[in-house]
């Protein structure tokens, strides 16, 4: 199903992001953060997503790094 190659591609993508994005960081003063501080720019899940993440972690084999469950609770129904 090509998951291995797609996974390798994603890994390269993540490394590429790390290598190319962080050197591009420019100093941002507090008064320049009106957009960054917008509630919808938050780097976390919305509270309304909590139960979506729960069902995804039960119906799919992978979980983690998204604030969803990595343990606890059965989901066995």
């Amino acid at each position, binding site marked *: 199903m090509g998951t291995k190659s797609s996974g390798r591609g994603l890994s390269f993508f993540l490394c590429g992001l790390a290598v190319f994005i962080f050197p591009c960081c420019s100093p941002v003063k507090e008064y320049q953060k009106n957009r*960054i501080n917008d509630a919808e720019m938050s*780097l976390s899940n919305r*509270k309304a997503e909590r139960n979506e993440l729960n069902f995804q972690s039960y*119906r799919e084999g*992978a979980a983690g790094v998204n604030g969803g469950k990595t343990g606890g609770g059965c989901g066995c129904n």
Partner: protein
Amino acid sequence: MRKICLTVVGMYLMLLHAFSQVAPGDSSSYKPRKLKLEEVNLVSSYYTQSGDHSAILGGIGSEKVTDLANGLELKWVGMDGRLRKNTLTAGMGVDHHTAASQAWISKTGASRRTDGLRLYPSLNWTIENEKKGNSFGLGGYYSNEFNYQSLGLTAGFTQKTKNNGEFGLKLSGYFDRVKLIFPSEFEPAGYSGNNLAGGRDHPQYPSSPRETYTASFSFSQVINSRLQATFLMDLVEQQGYLGLPFHRVYFTDATDSVEKLPSHRFKLPIGVRLNYFLGDRIILRSYFRYYIDDWGLRSGTASLELPFKITPFFSISPFYRYYIQSAVNYFAPYGQHKSADHFYSSNYSLSAFSSHFFGSGIRLSPPNGVFNSKLSALEIRYGHYTQTTDLVSDIISLNLTFK
């Protein structure tokens, strides 16, 4: 179900009453003050699912499920004598589900109950030192349902950098007990005398432990005035009874048994979030994850959400998520495992598939509250999910934030 609805209405009325006694305050002031209730979140969801690969019947049979989930979270904030911000968060969740496949724990499909209740309280305490830019937190979690109990403990630490970055480390441990409820044909002989058509209500079922240890690492960075990112990695170690005792497996020789999986699993998910404010009205919220474990499962996830601000306080957010995974080494469909196999499962969540999840949300957060009330934000989301295993589900969620 009526009890749950009444409980939720009761909790809602209680928090309205609580807020009627509380004057609005400023949490950012640097004066010592006692903990004060500052935010209440109510999250409710209704989930419905259909499919025809139930693990209870070895990969065939109805997967019809409904789930009504309600969670209440209360957040108190205060400043201690050393001018550190203390945040205490208490949560309580109540889920009620129905599952058609539960009837088939009994060989004849006559298990008495096809529904269940899950209760899960939680408590978290965080101390944040704004001068030093760090925070430390501890948390506890408990979950109880008819065949499963879970106790979770967490400890976390974050440290801000000078350049608008933040490192985070969180350690958590879940100590679970799986009640050994086998399909009726595999129940130990001693249980049959008191078997209530499927045996789920037998008071003396033994249980088996399952432990999960997670170390979560994160690094967030503001890249410029419109773009920020976070890199995430979890190291997850699981041990104990990692299958479920009422999942059947049918072999090529027409015999059947109970799912058997290794007692150890190591998971390594890595991910990145990138959020970009495009122009004045559109935000791009993206998320990518790659996952690998030692059962042979590999998966990739990509999602994109585009909140569009119709006004500064009202937005519509369409979203799409794509997910793909390979099967674990121990999966085979109904009737395809050999009885000589060492491990076997016909649970389709461990099979190879891809899925699509799409929908939209709306968010309303006027500066004076919704309808000039204490309700500071209202959010509704709907999503439709399809898997290539033919599983289809829908979920609608509501989040009310009171401040």
